[in-house]
């Protein structure tokens, strides 16, 4: 059973304190929303969990092992996958190659053709199987987002962090992503979803984290969080109590 704990994470960029003592625990296949205004530190937090950034202080444990000291590929192998806010497909590689990379990286002796079938399934699930031999740069922004999600399926991690999966996505593709999240979550994988789209976040997530300029100001049931006066203040401007 998955267990991810982040203990008192702080992160400074020079003098700027981007994260202040952020602690939380994810247990089991939770579906968590992470919201906060621009520059709140959401992406920074993702980068720290992922190993791309080292925290200035604090630790991250996953299933009892410390992962904040590991390089990103070590974290990925430990079972944490993520997408990027600005899509980062391997643009001059084909869609299929994009998908094969995480699968091959996880298994040292594997060969490409072992995974082609699985990749085909993933592409079909994401409705882009007709694009398998196209270069990724020929895909639209939304399709590139799907491709990133597909790579995560090939990586097959225990926990997935999605950084703004709905930003700039066509409503129809949004349905696909929505379905992706619910189905994969039902298969027992935990999700942290960063989004500015309140509708989706409130319908989708079963737990909500709110970051406000580095402080974790709320953590709990979405309905409760919604009524939280601190959160309201952060989102709706000055509330006259």
């Amino acid at each position: 059973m998955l267990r991810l704990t982040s203990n008192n994470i702080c992160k400074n960029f020079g003098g700027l304190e981007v994260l202040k003592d952020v602690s939380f625990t994810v247990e089991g296949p939770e579906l968590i929303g992470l919201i906060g205004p621009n520059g709140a530190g959401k992406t920074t937090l993702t980068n720290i969990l992922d190993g791309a950034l080292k925290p200035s202080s604090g630790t991250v444990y996953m299933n009892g092992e410390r992962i904040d000291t590991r390089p990103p590929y070590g974290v990925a192998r430990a079972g944490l996958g993520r997408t990027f806010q600005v899509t980062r497909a391997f643009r001059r590689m084909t869609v299929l190659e994009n998908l094969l990379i995480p699968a091959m990286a996880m298994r040292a002796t594997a060969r490409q053709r072992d995974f082609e079938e699985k990749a085909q399934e993933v592409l079909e699930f994401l409705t882009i199987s007709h694009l398998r031999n196209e270069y990724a740069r020929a895909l639209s922004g939304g399709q590139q987002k799907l491709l990133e999600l597909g790579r995560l399926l090939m990586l097959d991690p225990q926990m997935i962090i999605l950084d703004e999966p709905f930003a700039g996505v066509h409503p129809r593709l949004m349905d696909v992503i929505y379905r992706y999240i619910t189905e994969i979550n039902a298969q027992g994988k935990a999700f942290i979803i960063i989004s500015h789209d309140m509708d989706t976040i409130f319908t989708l997530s079963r737990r909500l984290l709110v970051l406000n300029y580095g402080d974790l100001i709320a953590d709990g049931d979405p309905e409760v969080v919604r009524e939280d006066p601190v959160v309201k203040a952060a989102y709706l401007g000055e509330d006259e109590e």
Partner: protein
Amino acid sequence: MNPTAIYRVAGSIAIVLLLAIPFASSELGGVGPLVLSSYFMHLAITAFFYAILASSWSLLAGYAGQFSFGHMAFMAIGGYTSGLIGKFFRFTTAPSELCTDIPLLGNWWLVILNIRRVGTIDESCLDMARAETLPAGTLIVFPPVWASIAMGLVMGATFGLLVGWLVLRLRSTYLALFTIGFSEILRASISAEIPITEGQSGLELVPLFPGGLLGFTSTSKIPPYYAMLLLFLLAMALMTWLAGSRFGLFIRAIREDEEAAAALGVNIVRYKVLVFVITSTLAAAAGALQGHYIGIITPNTLIILQMSLVIAMAVIGGLENIYAASVGAIVITFALELLRTSINIGPLHVDMTLWRLVFFGLLLMLTLRFQRNGLLFPILERISRGGVAEETVSIREESEEDWEEEVEVDQLEDSPSDSGEESAG
């Protein structure tokens, strides 16, 4: 015919042709009216040498995105290592007493000659030993050429490992500067350490086959031709295999986006170092072989001009494809040689010996600007990916019924070289 088949057939024909060329050489009497002079053979050997360098550089820069300017340095490391072993190492059946003796198996000794001192009479310790200490009947054996070449490879790999590890953190411009620095330091040291390297006079190397081979003399072009061709084919085979395996997949992913690759579990450290090790080893192998073939190697092989040649060959051929780069290298080697003439345009006398390099530089710039993928690669690309667009469209039409509405796939007709979607902010 499907693209793989085209490649296979074209590749086999090319290999057979290359294997057959020596039969038309003047040494073997030529084939009918076709007599290839041994100068042609020499050019062919040189062309393979550059082809190995250009294609391995394309693996490093084009596939893995590591724009190193130190490739010639690894080439020189291979050549010099092999040459220095030939210069300083001997096997004997008795200790020399005057040189550094290292006992080996049986009664064999490895003798390392002393470094000559500048400014005094230059007498080898072994010559002195032969006259004074060595008992009569002592065998003195040169290290075999293949073994010294192998040591060249080992040194190339070692330095590749070292440099690859040092440059892990450096990106594009810094990497380019660092590798220029590396090769400049190497050049200066080789020029200055005359007692060891012979400096600018050049280090002489024994011929590739000192005793000749199969009836060919040590100076015949035919054995070196096959040796270099073999190395070229081996290198291409190795790189083809690598490029098609996980290694190729991962280094291209690193080129595209290092962080994303890491986030997907690719051990970027290992693969970045590995690509340096492999390409440096190939360069060192080419350098050692060429060194023995030419018989001399000088620090001038490290001058920036030599590196520009390799870069230009790879770029003009097609940086992102090892075949395009190697064919580019072969074509350009011959072209540059053919252009060593002077022409008269009306009253104007143009000495092409100089101007060819001017045009070459211009061609390099224009290729970069207007044909980013090189002059050759787009052709290969067309052959190998010709079917993709139709395939995509047809599959899409099949699946159309699941999609009552147009989903954003209208960009399919765009050519893959189009890149206008870059941010415009």
